[in-house]
Structures are given as structure tokens and as C-alpha cells.
């Protein structure tokens, strides 16, 4: 990519950075975004390995810095779960911790300057590389569909199938004549949850990455514009730190709220 940068227009530079490393099956039915899969899985393994090793070596004496950090995160998630969910499930707090740290790590990849990892990959022969998994709609929707499946499972388990159907059909207006109206309203509410959960994370991360790419375009002009680009880059990266943490936190909070709503029975 460095060698052909003279022929590359800004449009093709942007498009090159917005393309995933795709692998298609022979009949075209399966399309895999190998770079998103690679980075999301390796970040998940990193999170699991890190927290597991800290938990195994944890001391009740004076803790080290890594143990302090892990304890901080776990206590924060625990407090958030206790505020919103008043039941007894063993699943919700570890799920919230996983979602928070995993989404945060995936978003954190956005702070690496846009060209570094793709240029390393190009040296090895990989043509396209998008390093932020949460800019891929497949990743964010798979997270939110997982949460949605858990919501349906717990709704059916706690309220029973009959109670679930009753909640869907008799909810705002408690009269049998209003069943179609209720069903439309309640199903829109139910379906908006996973759709908005996935699209919110995708939209924020995609827009943030695109602005990083646009700022990175400035480095290919002359040195004055490049200096201005450095200033913009630093400013936008600092703002983006807030967005990254906030989006991971919101995903976790909404997961907790949806699961606690699925657990409540009247």
C-alpha cells in the first residue's frame, strides 16, 4: 500500500480501509469476515486468560496493580448489576462482566492508528484488514442476538409460555378485544431491543473509525496539513476514549436491564 500510494486516490484509500478480509465458500452461501473473527476471538481469549490468571494468583494481602484493576472492574460490574437486578440468577453478573470487558477491548482496537496493522498485514501478504471487530455489523448483531436469545429463554422460564404470551397480548390494554393492538405494540418493543442494541454499537464505532480514516487522509498531503492532522487526530482520539467506554457500559447496562425485565414476574 505504501508503494502504490501515488496512484491511490483518497476515495480508494477510504474504501480500502472500509473493506473486510472476506472469505467466501464455494457456493457463495457462507461469507466469513476473517479479520473480525480473528480479532474478536483473540481479544476474548486475552480477556479470559488475563482475568483467570489474576484470579488464580489473587492474594488477600496487599494486592498488586493488576489485581487492583481487575477487582475494580469486577466490583463496578457487581454494583451495576445489584442496582438493577433484584433476583437470584448466577448468570447475569458474569455475563455483564464478559460483555463489558469484551466490548471495551474490541472498541479499544479503534485507538490504534488506522494504517499500522494493515501495513503490517500487507507486508505478510494480507490485502485488507479491518482491526475493529465492533465496526462489523455481524459481530455487534451476534452479541445482541445472543442477549436476545437469553431474554426469550429467561422470559419463558420465569413466566412460563402461557405467562409470556399473556404479557405479549394483554399488556397495555387488558381486554381481549385489544389483543391484536397489544401484540403489535409489544412485539415492536420486543424486536426493537436487539436491533437497537446491535445497531447502536455498530453506528458509534463505524462513524468513529470513519473519522479516523478521514483524518489519516490528511497525512498524505503536505507537511502543514499533516501537522493539522496530528492535532485533529489527538483531539478526536481523546474524545473517542469516552465514546468507547460509554458504549461498552451502555451495552452492559442494557443487557442487565433487559435480563432483569425478563426475570420479573408479577
Amino acid at each position, binding site marked *: 500500500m505504501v508503494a502504490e500510494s501515488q496512484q491511490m486516490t483518497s476515495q480508494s484509500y*477510504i*474504501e480500502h480501509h472500509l473493506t473486510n478480509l472476506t472469505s467466501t465458500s464455494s457456493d457463495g452461501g457462507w461469507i466469513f469476515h476473517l479479520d473480525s473473527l480473528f480479532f474478536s476471538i483473540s481479544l476474548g481469549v486475552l480477556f479470559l486468560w488475563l482475568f483467570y490468571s489474576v484470579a488464580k494468583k489473587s492474594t488477600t494481602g496487599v494486592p498488586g496493580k493488576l489485581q487492583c484493576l481487575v477487582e475494580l472492574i469486577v466490583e463496578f460490574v457487581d454494583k451495576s448489576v445489584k442496582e438493577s437486578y433484584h433476583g437470584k440468577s448466577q448468570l447475569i453478573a458474569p455475563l455483564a462482566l464478559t460483555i463489558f470487558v469484551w466490548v471495551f477491548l474490541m472498541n479499544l482496537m479503534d485507538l490504534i492508528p488506522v494504517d499500522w496493522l494493515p501495513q503490517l498485514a500487507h507486508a505478510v501478504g494480507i490485502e485488507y484488514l479491518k482491526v475493529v471487530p465492533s465496526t462489523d455489523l455481524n459481530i455487534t448483531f451476534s452479541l445482541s442476538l445472543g442477549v436476545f436469545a437469553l431474554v426469550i429463554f429467561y422470559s419463558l422460564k420465569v413466566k412460563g409460555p402461557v405467562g409470556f404470551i399473556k404479557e405479549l397480548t394483554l399488556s397495555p390494554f387488558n381486554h381481549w378485544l385489544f389483543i391484536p393492538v397489544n401484540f403489535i405494540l409489544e412485539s415492536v418493543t420486543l424486536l426493537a431491543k436487539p436491533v437497537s442494541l446491535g*445497531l*447502536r454499537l455498530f*453506528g458509534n464505532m463505524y*462513524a468513529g473509525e470513519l473519522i479516523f480514516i478521514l483524518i489519516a487522509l490528511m497525512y498524505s498531503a503536505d507537511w502543514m496539513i499533516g501537522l493539522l492532522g496530528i492535532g485533529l487526530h489527538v483531539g478526536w482520539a481523546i474524545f473517542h476514549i469516552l465514546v468507547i467506554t*460509554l458504549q461498552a*457500559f451502555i451495552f452492559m447496562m442494557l443487557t442487565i436491564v433487559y435480563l432483569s425485565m425478563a426475570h420479573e414476574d408479577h
Partner: protein
Amino acid sequence: METVLGFTGISVALLIGLGALGTAIGFGLLGGKFLESAARQPELVPMLQVKMFIVAGLLDAITMIGVGIGLYMLFANPLAALLPN
């Protein structure tokens, strides 16, 4: 071709602009209410701040969806790709 590109430009502007308008008004109302209740009961400020960020995330959601779709249309226009050349 020019028609498609022109309309794409206008639609991207509408997507981003109207989303920004709604979010700005929403955040203004949200922040105003937060400041009022913070002045009324300062001991509740940490809890209210957490809840404010949660509502801010919900406010931002549709706007960000609009921005994402708008930027996608601007840089990788699927409508222009449908044209017969």
C-alpha cells in the same frame, strides 16, 4: 447518474443533520433536568450521573444509526452500484 449522486448527497445531509438536531435538543433537556435535580438534592448526584449516561446512550442510538447509514451511503454508495454501468 448525477441524479442518484445528488439525491444521495442530500439524503446523507438530512440523515446526519436531522439526527444531530434531535439529539441536541434531547441532550439539552436531559442535562437541564439533571442539573436541576443536582441542585435540589446534591447527595444524589453520583447515582443520577450514572442514570444520565444511560439515558444519553439511548438518546444517541438512533442518531448514530443514522450517521452510520449516512456515512456508508457517502463512501460506499449502494445506490450508485445498482446503476447499469
